[in-house]
């Protein structure tokens, strides 16, 4: 998806042997930006790898998480993620399509909705947590459950997905739209057969960004999906997500740092796995049309 546009610059790279100042600046920026994060990832890797084993992935947490593994937490995390995506994808895609297809870019409604979404992205995660607790857990009676966690997370991730997907949809070349109109295609047909596949890379990118954000959230889930480390048996059960576990082990439980680092490592591997899966899915989608 991020296949950069190098091919077309191969010639210019050879032509301009001298390094120009802008190239130098950009390389410096790239190196500078990579230093601290690489230190961070390196640190997680170094601290976490010592405990990583199949047992860690398949065991239950013991002794408040200091020993044992994280299997129930992986299951909870994936279920929370699944519910979050099940809510975000239809609503998010629908809203993004509405913004890009049914409204002109400068119409007041469009500006209004965009404003609302951007403001929503600035609401602190802890407010989402308290809100989710009051609305999903108490008002709707879902209690501390994976369901309330997933739905609260969906509220939080929605603006990010919509705005990114909208950009991808707007980038569809006008010629495609004109062709569709000329062929008397319905809007639904156009969307399904032309627009979505052509924007599939961008939408997959929006999806990955949203998943990344969702997996990284802690405060929202502490108040909604809860703290329980038992293997959840249904969506109405409370289940701790990996990020909450990492938080608890590093800040609340003395002696939990080792497993916190290993859990962080597992989370990173999970993200890589999801990214690869999403890329493959989007490529298959694009190839089918």
């Amino acid at each position, binding site marked *: 998806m*991020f*296949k*950069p546009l*190098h091919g*077309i*610059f191969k010639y*210019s790279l050879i032509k*301009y042997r001298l390094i120009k100042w802008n190239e130098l*600046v950009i*390389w410096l*920026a790239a190196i500078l930006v990579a230093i*601290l*994060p690489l230190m*961070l*990832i390196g*640190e997680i890797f170094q601290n976490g790898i010592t405990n990583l084993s199949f047992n860690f992935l398949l065991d239950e947490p013991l002794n408040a998480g200091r020993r044992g593994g994280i299997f129930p937490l992986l299951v909870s995390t994936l279920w929370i993620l699944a519910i979050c995506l099940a809510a975000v994808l239809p609503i998010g895609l*629908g809203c993004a399509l*509405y913004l890009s*297809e049914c409204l002109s870019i*400068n119409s007041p409604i469009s500006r209004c*909705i965009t*404003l*609302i979404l*951007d*403001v*929503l*992205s*600035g*609401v*602190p995660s*802890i*407010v989402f947590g308290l*809100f989710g607790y009051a609305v999903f857990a108490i008002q709707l009676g879902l209690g501390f459950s994976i369901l309330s966690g997933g739905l609260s997370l969906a*509220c939080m991730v*929605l603006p990010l997905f919509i*705005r*990114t997907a909208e*950009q*991808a949809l707007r*980038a569809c*070349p006008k010629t495609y*739209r004109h062709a569709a109109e000329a062929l008397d*295609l319905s*809007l*639904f047909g*156009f969307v399904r057969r032309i627009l979505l596949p052509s924007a599939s890379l*961008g939408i997959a990118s929006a999806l990955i*960004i949203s*998943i990344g954000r969702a*997996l*990284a959230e*802690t*405060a929202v889930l502490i108040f909604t999906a809860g703290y329980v480390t038992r293997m959840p048996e249904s969506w109405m059960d409370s289940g701790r997500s990996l*990020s909450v576990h*990492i*938080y608890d082990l*590093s800040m609340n439980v003395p002696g939990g740092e080792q497993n916190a680092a290993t859990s962080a490592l597992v989370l990173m591997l999970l*993200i*890589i796995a999801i*990214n690869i899966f999403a890329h493959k899915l989007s490529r298959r989608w694009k190839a089918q049309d």
Partner: protein
Amino acid sequence: MRTSRIFQLSLKTSALLAASVLFFIVFFLICESAPLLSKVGFSAFFELNWHPLDGEYSLSAMLVGSLVVAFGAVIVATPLGIMVALFGQFYAPEKLAKAYLTMIELLAGVPSVVYGFWGLTILVPWITLWAPPGASVLAGIIVLAMMILPLVVLTSDAALSSVPRKYLTSAQALGLSRWGIIYRLALPIATPGIISGVILQSGRALGETMAVLMVTGNVVQIPSSWFQPVRTLTANIALEMAYAVGDHRQALFMSGTVLLLLTIIIVALAHYALKERRA
């Protein structure tokens, strides 16, 4: 284009649902803070100091704290983020770009508590060597910039990828230099997407809780230097909500409301400033 009513209705409904979330949240915040608001009035939140157990509810110092840390982070992360996105799209060899962007995608999913923990155990002691107490505005800005950078890069990259390849190849055929193509063609086309990403991330910066809680020192004061500790509105809520009852709790919800108002003002200003640029 002709369209079925059902389809259009379903699109409208999803848009309405998405937008209504904010109204529910605003309603929620106001409900929770209303009792205290009617008791002490709006101006009470801007005078004196923050000692909620003694009836003092001033939010001014924390407001300044939130603004300074968030804007600092955005100012640092935006140019760097855009440059890195350009790096990945136009300057780096293909394999390196792929690896680099994978690292960025990884970073986007790292929980805020991990960033905070790293800040607390490595960055803050390092800053302490130069200027105790270490936990400071600077630490907050660095950690927050690290957090929002990956998403700035990813949204900018997504925007740049959407630039139709045909434009770039035709520009090259016309003999434009690489920087010329970037500056005069790719960037202008991708700008709306890039800016939208930046606005989203500034929102995120204002709303970030865990990481700033761990590295900014949380002392309620208006900082007079980069090395002084400061407390943001979000850290305030996170720190005290667990143990707050009655008026204290409502005061915390009030700080959430004020933060929301701040976000609305800033985003509205940003949108207004960009009104002309939207193609």
